[in-house]
């Protein structure tokens, strides 16, 4: 199964200014008023102090402190389906092309499309006062996720971007069928997916869809059993990082 570790995101190499400095809450970062305040800092009189335990990072004139753990705030939700069907909890449109008004019959038939425990890609329409969400799948890119694997990673690793999408590997390009017995050729691509690591000792890579695709392609050079060896894992990550650097994405 996938090894999940927490890692820090490295600052872009061309902008790394200072030696990374560790601070704890209350430590003075600078008395220079030239700098702008970022996350993990606060002003007191003229001094800039740290409010979390972490490493100070400077990007031009912005100083922020990167703690070891943060929580993810996102807009596009990838989550398991709701536990109960009720008209006032979740409003979910059909995933078919034509838009139809909801009717009582639709609600009864919903079970044919979605069941508890299914994975859905949806967009948050609105947030109610009590915290529950209204989701919609009104776009062709949303809907129920078919055969595949869910890999959970730490929120720290996810690169901040406007849209987050689930990665479609080759196996998912097959037309949506009912769940049939997966033979070896189908299983292999799915098996490579968990071997996506963001392991601190091997290298650091933000999780975004291009990165995952490149890692997948790099891993194609080995068989599944070979990939279980740490050195091979390291190679795969290195190749991916090289490729991303060439393209200037990292």
């Amino acid at each position, binding site marked *: 199964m996938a090894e999940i570790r927490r890692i*820090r995101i490295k600052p872009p190499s061309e902008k790394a200014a200072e030696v990374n400095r*560790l601070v*704890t*809450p*209350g430590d003075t970062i600078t008395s220079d008023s030239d700098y702008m305040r970022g996350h993990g800092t606060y002003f007191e009189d003229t001094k800039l102090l740290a409010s*979390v335990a*972490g490493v100070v990072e400077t990007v031009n004139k912005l100083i922020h402190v990167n703690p*070891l*753990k943060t929580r993810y705030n996102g807009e596009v939700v990838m989550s398991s389906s709701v536990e109960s069907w009720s008209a006032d909890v979740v409003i979910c449109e059909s995933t078919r092309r034509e838009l139809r008004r909801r009717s009582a019959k639709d609600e009864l038939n919903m079970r044919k499309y979605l069941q508890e425990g299914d994975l859905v890609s949806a967009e948050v329409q609105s947030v109610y006062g009590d915290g529950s969400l209204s989701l919609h799948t009104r776009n062709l890119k949303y809907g129920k996720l078919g055969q595949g694997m869910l890999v959970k990673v730490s929120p720290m690793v996810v690169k901040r971007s406007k849209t987050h999408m689930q990665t479609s590997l080759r196996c998912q390009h097959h037309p949506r069928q009912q769940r049939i017995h997966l033979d070896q050729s189908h299983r292999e691509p799915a098996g490579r997916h968990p071997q996506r690591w963001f392991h601190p000792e091997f290298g650091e890579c933000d999780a975004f869809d291009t990165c995952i695709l490149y890692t997948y392609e790099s891993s194609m050079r080995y068989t599944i059993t070979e990939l279980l060896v740490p050195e091979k894992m390291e190679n795969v990550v290195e190749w991916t990082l090289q490729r991303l650097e060439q393209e200037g994405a990292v």
Partner: protein
Amino acid sequence: MDESSIREITSEQTLLSQPDGSSNYSQGDSTVMVGIYGPADIKQSKEQMDRATVEVIFKPKIGLAGVREKAMETMISNTCQAIVITTMHPRSSITIVVQVIQDAGSLLSCCINAVCMALMDAGISMKCLVAAVSCAITDEGAVIVDPTLKVTEDASAVLHFAFDSTEKHLVLSSTHGSCTTDQYMSCLKSCQDACDKLFEFYRTSAERRFSKT
């Protein structure tokens, strides 16, 4: 005046998977485990419009929580509200669960120090760190810092102090028993000197954690 220093400190962070921050902290044989959830949703009746609400749940080793535990909760909560930047998270809650694993003296100080480490682990914004030290005044008038359970039981007064990391100002002061003003001030001075060891410990453990990544 007899003075002793704080017993051996050991701590562990991020040991629990569900809370946002957690820590296991021991001072000698006194051990406490803390889990922190937050900033998170809160019931509308409890929410504060301009700041986060700090809730503490103190669980004793044996039995149900009673009035004494409620008093501990209030003291820990007040200390946290003084150091956590609650205005950063309005209408949210920060829930701190403290579980006593073993009480071998200086329990309140242990709890506060454990909570501080867990807050750091959770990445919740704080103005500064806090270190708590207890001390006892024996019948002969000697001041013993970080007393064991036996010393506490025979003492004429037990005092708990908590200090902030920037100016070492007093954040919490709690007294059981009776003592003179001079004794109080000398206890305060001894505890203030002793908390250096704790701040050093916080710093070293943070450095060790970050050097691994």
